């Protein structure tokens, strides 16, 4: 019974992390129909920056967010304006796969060149600490990552629902032509949307670095599950991605009890397969995928 409850707790924490890591990915697609293969490479880049910050200064890696979040936002805006916007709208989705694939390779190569292929881990005084909750252990680092996910997804949700920029962004997601007709500068909004997506990658990468060993090619292990999450959640829907992430994280953790790790991991691909068979637009909210 305690294993069941422990796995449940681990699953919820894992689901929260997945939700944070997938949020940007669904945002890019929603705003611009861009399949951003390099999202996980940016996550690893942020993780490396957090590691480098801590090993140089000895300060807590969370403080690196002060620099990396604005840096990633600006990088995202520039990347959209200088690279993505030059792709032809008719083939944007396909070509963005190639373009961002190359960006991912560049980031991976640069990380290997600068920091070498050696596997790194941030050494935290509290990395092994945990709190006890009804007999289950809740690791402090996982709790921090979950907190970061909750705060940033909450902030993102409020931004999209309550601000004028959010309204403009949602209008761009729902119908870019109509948004332009009512005077929204959709190019600029798309740039900011992309920047926002990369800003979540900065937070996600730092959360990831708290509790994992990082190396330049690690991003290939992440992009598959994250893509599965946003398709199951409905492309473009942030709440959908969050719910799908939570369900798949929990599913993975709970399936580990009767099955082994290899089979528990296949839940992502089974869910992806089932979604594409039964409901290609995704289960939660997304309407966009119907058009593609």
């Amino acid at each position: 019974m305690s294993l069941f409850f422990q796995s449940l707790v681990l699953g919820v924490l894992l689901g929260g992390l997945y939700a944070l890591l997938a949020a940007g990915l669904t945002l890019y697609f929603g705003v611009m129909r861009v399949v951003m293969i390099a999202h996980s490479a940016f996550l690893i880049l942020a993780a490396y920056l957090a590691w480098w910050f801590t090993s140089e200064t000895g300060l807590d890696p969370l403080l690196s967010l002060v620099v990396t979040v604005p840096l990633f936002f600006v990088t995202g805006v520039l990347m959209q304006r200088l690279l993505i916007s030059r792709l032809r709208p008719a083939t944007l989705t396909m070509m963005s796969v190639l373009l961002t694939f190359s960006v991912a390779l560049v980031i991976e190569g640069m990380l290997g060149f600068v920091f070498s292929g050696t596997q790194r881990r941030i050494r935290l005084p509290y990395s092994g600490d945990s709190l006890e909750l009804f007999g289950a252990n809740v690791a402090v680092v996982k709790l921090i990552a979950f907190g970061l996910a909750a705060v940033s997804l909450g902030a993102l949700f409020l931004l999209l629902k309550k601000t004028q920029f959010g309204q403009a962004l949602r209008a761009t997601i729902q119908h870019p032509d109509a948004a332009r007709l009512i005077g929204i500068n959709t190019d600029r909004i798309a740039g900011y949307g992309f920047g926002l997506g990369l800003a979540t990658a900065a937070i996600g990468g730092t959360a990831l670095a708290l509790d994992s060993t990082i190396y330049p090619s690690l991003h290939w292990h992440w992009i598959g599950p994250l893509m599965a999450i946003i398709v199951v959640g409905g492309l473009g829907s942030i709440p959908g991605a969050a719910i799908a992430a939570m369900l798949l994280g929990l599913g993975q953790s709970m399936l580990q009890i009767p099955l082994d790790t290899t089979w528990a991991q296949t839940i992502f691909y089974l869910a992806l397969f089932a979604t594409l068979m039964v409901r290609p637009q995704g289960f939660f909210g997304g309407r966009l995928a119907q058009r593609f």
Partner: protein
Amino acid sequence: MKVPMHHRLGVLALASCLTLTGCMSSSSGSDDEDGEGPINIGISLPLTGDFSEPGKGVQRGYEAWADYVNENGGLLGRQVELTILDDQSNADRVASDYEKLINQDGVDLVFGPFSTRLVVPAAQVAQDYGFLFVEPAGAAEEVFTQGFDNLFYAAPAVADDHYNYLADAIEALPEAERPKTAAYAAMDDPFAMGTAYGLKTRLEAMGVKTVADEVYPPNTTDFGSIAAKIADSEADVLVGGTQYQDAVNMIVALRQLGYQPKMAAFSTAPTNPEFPDAIGDETEGILSPTGYTPDADYPTNAEFVEFYTEANGTPPAEDEANAWTTGQVVAAAVEAVGCADPDPECQQQPVDWLRENEVETVVGPLSWDAEGRPEGAHLIQQYVDGEIRIVLPEEAAEAELILEKPAW
């Protein structure tokens, strides 16, 4: 700037081809029939691709060995020249490389490449031409079950035997003090699983009950669930068939769950210099088998460490040592039989000699069974007072084995 789409695709395709193929360099060796000129040794190594890191380590070891031999009178009084090709970690490529080395370049001897996947096709070519084949890496069982009768693995032990000294030490304990239960977690990889399951077979034979047995794919990043199952089993002994990041992530995940084994052993990771940086002060008592350490006091090892360190600035690691060992094994056999040329009759003599004799190397004295398995075991190292030291076997020990691991 507008560039037509097919141009962009063309450039992309070209760029990927360049990335994939890399560049290959080779130098052709000189043929020497009368046995007066240099002895040419042909080698193919994964200098690019998946195994490029260890491949380069093996290259450094081979080159250091050749320099050392040449500075000390050569082999059979002749200088040694290496011809090293890059097989790009590709199993087809490695076979054609050895064909080329033997057929076109007319090398006098060959040394093996790195890792099981490349050793098997390379050994097949050497077998076809009747060449002696000593290899520095390729510890998995499948290397020794292909029917090669010219192959020798130049390291102390095959994967399954890595923990033999530890198993012996546990067996030597009075029954009441032996651990009762054990948990195993191994990466789905022939080498990593071989180490963990080798010890599992021994422990089960002693009556240690297996209470958890997890196998995970190499791309596993989250070890929370695996750790939860191991912690739930409350095993006395934890055995990890690990590489690097999996061991580190697993240890942290286990600490987060408050699991405290009495004994914890992991392959590969603890001997990595990054390991104490990643784990911190909680490494105390962690065990690991190792095929090589610069501190081992085997004859010739001190000389090797000094020569290598002077040439490269850092002490040798296991890959370099195994390459050097390969050189030592071939040299010992060739010196003993007194010939080194491509003729199958001459190649058969050192093969026969190695079947009968023991060779002193930097990883200890080596002898082989009929399939080329070395008949030793790995040294067992343990973190004692914050440093990794040899604890088993007793005659090589630098520190005393800690049987009851402190809490991590």
